[in-house]
């Protein structure tokens, strides 16, 4: 009996496809997410919008809060660690978290290295803005990729940029001759073997979700149309006027993203969305997507 193999990790991520993963900060919110049909929850002390507003160093959440959320729901529970902070990851693995997000939303612990994710039985998801970054994370053992977007803004523009960039580069790799792959691997800083895999298969070797700035059912469906496998919603649900209704609507919008009638129906009367931030009002150093290397 083999546990923690790459097949078990990536296979688990496959099970999230077509689903919505929601940020929650309390067991009550986790129950609302589960009732709405979320495929998993991300257990946090603060949602990205609050991390942004409050500033300071953002770290792994208190294991007590994560354990309370794990006890409250039957769906998988994820939690975040700082980039490069492998001890935070050891702690989360020890309490039995189902998936770890090595996340730029928290303050990075290492400005050069990410976690060696092969060392863990628990699977990891990492953010990426382009193909090179995604393949570096996969080479380090990530079993799932998500766009970085710009978390806590309620503004989908960066997630759209990252999704489009990823697919543009995948299509470009497919168009190359085999003897051009090495030079391209060097150019984007990605392992040759993975570039070759993408050239042959025309997609990433792991599941790729959208994240960072998704606030409405239409945003979520847009990301599905752009070829994402599913959606993370961070601040967008519990910072809105009617979280229960909005959570339910976003789940339906992802499942039926290609059905405008369903999208129209679920978009109706959702109350106030989260207040968004325009990206041109963010200073360069406030941009979370720039974290990670």
């Amino acid at each position, binding site marked *: 009996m*083999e546990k*923690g193999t790459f097949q078990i990790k990536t*296979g688990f991520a496959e*099970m999230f*496809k077509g*689903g919505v993963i929601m940020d929650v900060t309390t067991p009550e919110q986790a129950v609302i997410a589960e009732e709405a*049909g979320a495929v998993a929850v991300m257990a946090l002390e603060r949602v990205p919008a609050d991390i942004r507003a409050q500033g300071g160093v953002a770290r792994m959440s208190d294991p007590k809060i994560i354990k309370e959320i794990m006890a409250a729901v039957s769906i998988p529970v994820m939690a975040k660690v700082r980039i490069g902070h492998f001890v935070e990851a050891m702690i989360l693995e020890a309490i039995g978290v189902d998936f770890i997000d090595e996340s730029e939303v928290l303050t990075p612990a290492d400005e050069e290295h990410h976690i060696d994710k092969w060392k863990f039985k628990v699977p990891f998801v990492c953010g990426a803005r382009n193909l090179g970054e995604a393949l570096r994370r996969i080479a380090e053992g990530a079993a799932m990729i998500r766009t970085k977007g710009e978390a806590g803004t309620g503004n989908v523009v960066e997630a759209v940029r990252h999704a489009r960039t990823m697919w543009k580069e995948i299509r470009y790799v497919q168009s190359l001759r085999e003897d051009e792959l090495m030079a391209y691997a060097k150019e984007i800083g990605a392992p040759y073997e993975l570039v070759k895999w993408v050239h042959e298969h025309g997609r990433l070797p792991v599941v790729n979700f959208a994240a960072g700035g998704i606030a409405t059912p239409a945003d979520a469906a847009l990301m599905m149309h752009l070829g994402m496998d599913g959606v993370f919603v961070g601040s967008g649900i519990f910072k809105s006027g009617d979280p229960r209704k909005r959570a339910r609507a976003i789940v339906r919008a992802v*499942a*039926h993203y290609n059905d405008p009638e369903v999208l129209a129906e679920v978009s109706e009367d959702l109350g106030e969305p989260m207040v968004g931030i325009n990206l041109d009002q963010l200073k360069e150093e406030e941009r979370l997507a720039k974290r990670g290397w």
Partner: protein
Amino acid sequence: MRGVVGVLALQGDFREHKEALKRLGIEAKEVRKKEHLEGLKALIVPGGESTTIGKLAREYGLEEAVRQRVAEGSLAVFGTCAGAIWLAREILGYPEQPRLGVLDVAVERNAFGRQVESFEEDLFIRGFSEPFHGVFIRAPVFRRLGEGVEVLAELGGLPVLVRQGKVLASSFHPELTEDPRLHRYFLELAGF
């Protein structure tokens, strides 16, 4: 083999099932609403999150339509992992969870534990001459089997593959390996 098989595409790894069918020469049709069932004689319910699939299937009349077609005997169904949970008559500990109820078993969700306990293991499936590589992810097991439920594979004494009439259910994910035997078995069961 030829023909069309429906794959419930509300959530989960339906793409892998479509690819498994394609390798057998079968066309796969995504099913999201009850009208998509028309003309189908077989439906695969993928792995995914069983609570999500159950909730979404209850909407737009899909759950009721599938239940009716299975009761009439005009639709064969194969559920893997979350799909198997959805087929069960009873879900232990979660009496309110939406389900189809066409397979006379009580299913235990996450019977082996959380994700860090997920595993791969070779299985002996009745009627197959070679072992089958099983991928078990937060997998369920079948308990309290009703009359007419046949056990086709066990792991440590626990049933992990069962059949009742034209309903087939596995705890593991044959769609994640490239072994076509279990999909072929289902297609034969469905009359392809």
